[in-house]
């Protein structure tokens, strides 16, 4: 156990004024036993997750392939789409969390930032997951079908909604996300080796354009990948709605990953009760933000009562889909909000991790509610009329679990490749001494 020399601890308290205080973080252990995992760590679970993911993807592909009608194929495709969007939002949430903490020179987040960087660095997975879309794009985007071509709204939007432009935009989004995730990850990793303080400034420099590009790219990504699936419908709030779900799942994911690492005996004294208290505050904050945005979107559509806007909500609040919506309102907002209000919950790791897992699950349900009703949608002159009875088939599970399990295996792969914390970050001591004074 190597203790950090006292003079490297940037501490405003009196601990280096001759008499020592009882440390609230305990002895600081930066030895490899605490800050790294072996190269073969969690090999079993990783391979199991990878196998499960591939198996589920295979099953989904088989379900789509062997489907008797077009609806069966569409069902498989849209289930997969929900899974891919779930993975994407988690990666985007992690990326924006890293860039925000870099942009505002956050010190307290240093010890868990690496885990978010790892998740964001998996961004190339998005390109991989989007490749199969080349084969079934018209199943996702109805406007590509020949029967939609004469639609007057599509004619008006055709300068934007056309295949070459869409392909170009998606390539642009993926490149933007990958580039900024790569920048943040490599700059942080270089500092592990060189300890050069200038790299911190460089990471901050790249976070600024990163946030700007992210804001626009993520919003238009959601317009293109989810909103335009029903091209009659539009909501200017949708990008923010997508972002709110992303950052909420990003916070929940970093709580989950660090908790697993702590349970395996790492990060002792590096990510403390104090960090979880603040992550818990972020979790409740973005839970409220998500609910606020979700209701704002719903309320304006309800109030304005314009047919092409309300149709989207109507089909999702009928035929049993309203129960899914109710589960989301209660499960994604009311319940976590009331529980997370209490400080004792935010500082108790077990309940916090449970709530983080719950919010991740609810986030997937939220995406399911947005995307999956389109499968059995019937239309009248281009406007959605009914989403059909709500129901689940096994392909819904395999389609979602497939990408998510591969993503989880990817996280394990990334976690063991580098130290669990940015070991030579100049702001590390700030994070080690982090404490809530409330």
């Amino acid at each position, binding site marked *: 156990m190597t203790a950090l020399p006292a003079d490297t601890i940037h*501490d*405003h*308290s*009196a601990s280096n*004024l*001759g*008499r020592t*205080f*009882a440390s*609230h973080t305990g002895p600081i252990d930066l030895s490899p036993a605490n800050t790294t995992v072996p190269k073969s760590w969690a090999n079993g679970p990783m391979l199991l997750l990878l196998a499960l993911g591939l198996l589920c993807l295979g099953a989904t592909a088989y379900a789509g392939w062997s489907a008797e009608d077009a609806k069966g194929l569409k069902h498989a495709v849209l289930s997969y789409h929900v899974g891919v969007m779930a993975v994407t939002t988690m990666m985007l949430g992690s990326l924006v969390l890293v860039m925000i903490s870099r942009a505002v020179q956050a010190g307290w987040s240093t010890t868990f930032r690496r885990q978010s960087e790892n998740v964001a660095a998996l961004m190339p997975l998005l390109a991989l997951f989007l490749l199969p879309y080349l084969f079934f794009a018209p199943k996702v985007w109805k406007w590509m079908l020949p029967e939609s071509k004469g639609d007057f709204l599509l004619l008006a939007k055709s300068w934007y909604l056309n295949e070459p432009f869409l392909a170009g935009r998606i390539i642009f989004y993926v490149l933007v996300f990958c580039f900024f995730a790569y920048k943040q990850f490599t700059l942080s990793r270089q500092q592990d080796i060189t300890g050069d303080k200038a790299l911190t400034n460089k990471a901050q420099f790249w976070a600024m354009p990163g946030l700007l590009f992210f804001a626009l790219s993520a919003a238009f990504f959601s317009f293109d990948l989810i909103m335009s699936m029903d091209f009659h419908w539009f909501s200017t709030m949708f990008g923010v709605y997508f972002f709110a779900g992303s950052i909420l799942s990003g916070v929940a994911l970093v709580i989950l990953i660090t908790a697993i690492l702590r349970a395996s005996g790492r990060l002792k004294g590096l990510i403390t009760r104090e960090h979880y208290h603040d992550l818990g505050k972020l979790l409740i904050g973005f839970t409220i933000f998500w609910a606020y945005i979700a*209701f704002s979107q*719903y*309320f304006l559509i*309800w*109030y304005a*009562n314009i047919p092409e806007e309300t149709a989207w909500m109507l089909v999702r609040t009928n035929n049993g889909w309203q129960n899914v919506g109710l589960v989301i309102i209660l499960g994604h907002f009311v319940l976590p909000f009331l529980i997370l*209000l209490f*400080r004792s919950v935010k500082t108790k790791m077990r309940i916090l991790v449970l709530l983080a897992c719950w919010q991740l699950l609810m986030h997937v349900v939220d995406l399911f509610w947005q995307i999956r009703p389109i499968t059995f949608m019937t239309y009248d002159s281009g406007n959605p009329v009914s989403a059909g009875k709500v129901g689940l088939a096994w392909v819904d599970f395999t389609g979602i679990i497939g990408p998510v399990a591969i993503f989880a295996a990817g996280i394990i792969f990334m976690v063991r490749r580098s130290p669990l914390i940015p070991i030579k970050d100049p702001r590390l001591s700030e994070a080690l*001494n982090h*404490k809530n*004074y409330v």
Partner: protein
Amino acid sequence: MSSTTTITGTPNAGTAQGTYGIIAEFPDPATTFHAAEVVRDAGYAKWDVYSPFPIHGIDEAMGIKPNKLPLMVGLLGLTGAALGFAFQFFVRTDYAIVHQGKPASAWQVLVPVTFEFGVIFTAFSALLGMLAFNALPMWFHPLLKKERFLRVSDDRFIIAVEAKDAKFDPEQTKQLLLHAGATRVETVSDE
């Protein structure tokens, strides 16, 4: 340390009228921190630590318990939300007016006002509760008349024990603070 100590003020002033309490000067935050632990363990209740900058962990050293403000704010926030809801609910049932073609039973319209009432009650109860718990605004404080006390905004650390405290005894309290490392102990009048 005690060789450099000077004690001024009226000895054995007791808890007589006119005494605010005792102030003890400390040279550095570490000594102050440990002195606070001593005063806490001696069982004093009406006392405070003054410092030019925040001393990390002083809350625990002073034995300050989490206050009731969050609970109060939470309850008042919920009261506000309930009030905002009830307000609209009774207006809508007693004076139902159809507007914008919305059904009279629509719950959606109730949400914004309920939310805003909750937020406003939360914000105001937090602000006013904070002021009330801190006994603010306070126009006069005896300590501010003490020339030496003003150095807490510069380079001194001071523990002030009030005469109102049940355990307060002019001589014993002084000795306690000197043993805890005070470099100077003074009595403060409450005028």
